[in-house]
């Protein structure tokens, strides 16, 4: 009896929490958007935005396999404008690579075309 009541309450809480409006902070923490909005001037807002862009960009680099210290120094080498252009786009911007991977794909396509169009 008690455990089924507990279960009902827990399920209710889980659903209730999932329906809370999204906040960019965690419980008890002020969200970054609130910090930005309260900044006294555009200059202060810029400082906060730039700082957040830098930490976001560094975090994204780390999540893509760069070690934390390198990520920090790489982001530090870039200007605010450069970092803001990267922020959130590291996964989609062009990366110069020219590895063998695509060679194999192209080779397969060429072979497939030859096989199906000419050989059969």
């Amino acid at each position, binding site marked *: 009896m008690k455990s089924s009541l507990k279960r009902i309450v827990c399920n209710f809480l889980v659903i209730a929490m999932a329906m809370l409006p999204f906040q960019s902070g965690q419980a008890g923490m002020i969200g970054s958007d609130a910090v930005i909005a309260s900044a006294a001037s555009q200059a202060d807002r810029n400082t906060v935005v730039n700082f957040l862009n830098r930490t976001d960009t560094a975090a994204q680099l780390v999540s893509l396999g760069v070690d934390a210290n390198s990520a920090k120094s790489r982001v530090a080498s870039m200007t605010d404008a450069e970092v803001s252009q990267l922020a959130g786009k590291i996964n989609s911007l062009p990366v110069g*690579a020219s590895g063998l991977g695509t060679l194999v794909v192209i080779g397969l396509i060429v072979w497939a075309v030859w096989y199906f169009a000419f050989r059969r």
Partner: protein
Amino acid sequence: MMPAALYRSARLLAGALFSLLVLSGCASMVPQTMALRDAWPEGVPQRYEMAGVPFFPQEDYQCGPAALATAMVSAGVKVTPEELVKHVYIPDRQGSLQAEMLAAPRQYGLVGYQLAPSYDDLLREVAAGNPVVILQDIGVGPLVKWHYAVVVGFDYPAGELYLRSGQKQREAMPFTYLEHTWKKSAQWAIVALPPGRIPVTATEPAYTAAVAAMERVGDKGAVTKAYAATLERWPGNLGASVGLANQYYAKGDLEQAEAVLRRASDKHPNSVVLLNNLAQTVSDQGRDAEALTLIEKAGTPEPPFAEAVAETRALIQKRLAGGARK
């Protein structure tokens, strides 16, 4: 290796087809190469090659570190592609971002400068002895394959440019094909040069910004040299004057800092930044009354300088009133 050989012949085929297309009149596909026919950039020789540029055969996916090392060693910095991996390579994306290619040289005291998207400018820089790193799409057809390579020479009568590229120490590429592969990156091209060696196609605002960017992480000696060179090339440049004076100030060389700032104020008598920095420098040398006149001239400016000016004024007034000289 089968796929590589197929790819090479696919590329040769693409290049050949391309040249055929151009000859058959699809000149609109390579407008800049066509423009070179009518107007070869003035003062640029028809043939030029930098044989001394080193070659670093690239590892898988690491054309970024290899190309950057090529340019940086040419600029006099001892570095290897392996060292640059941690500065420009992103393991999970298996490649290097353009912004990081431009920024990485700053940590080594070099000025990274992005060229204007122009064939003329590419040729000018190469002919001036500056290797140029470009981003190309060397894919075949709809498949995009980004690749960094370094342009080290050209022979216009022979119709080709020479690149350090991938595993090839001297890749000869037709002008038409280079334009085609370069178009997709919006003709992205950079040089990484030692401070004091200004790219021949550099514009004043872009180069000043490039030096200011290096100031973030470059060593002080390099930054000082770079600002001094900027000022020599463009006397009266405000950004370079402020930057150079700041370098002297940080070193404790207040007289030099003041001299630079005063020269700049001749050209920019109402610049709030100059007035503030000059007032601070003059006050630090004990001439507080003079400093007060300067800071009063700055008035009450808009942000972002308002706070700095107010602080400087407060400090000078405190000193005049006989407070501690801190």
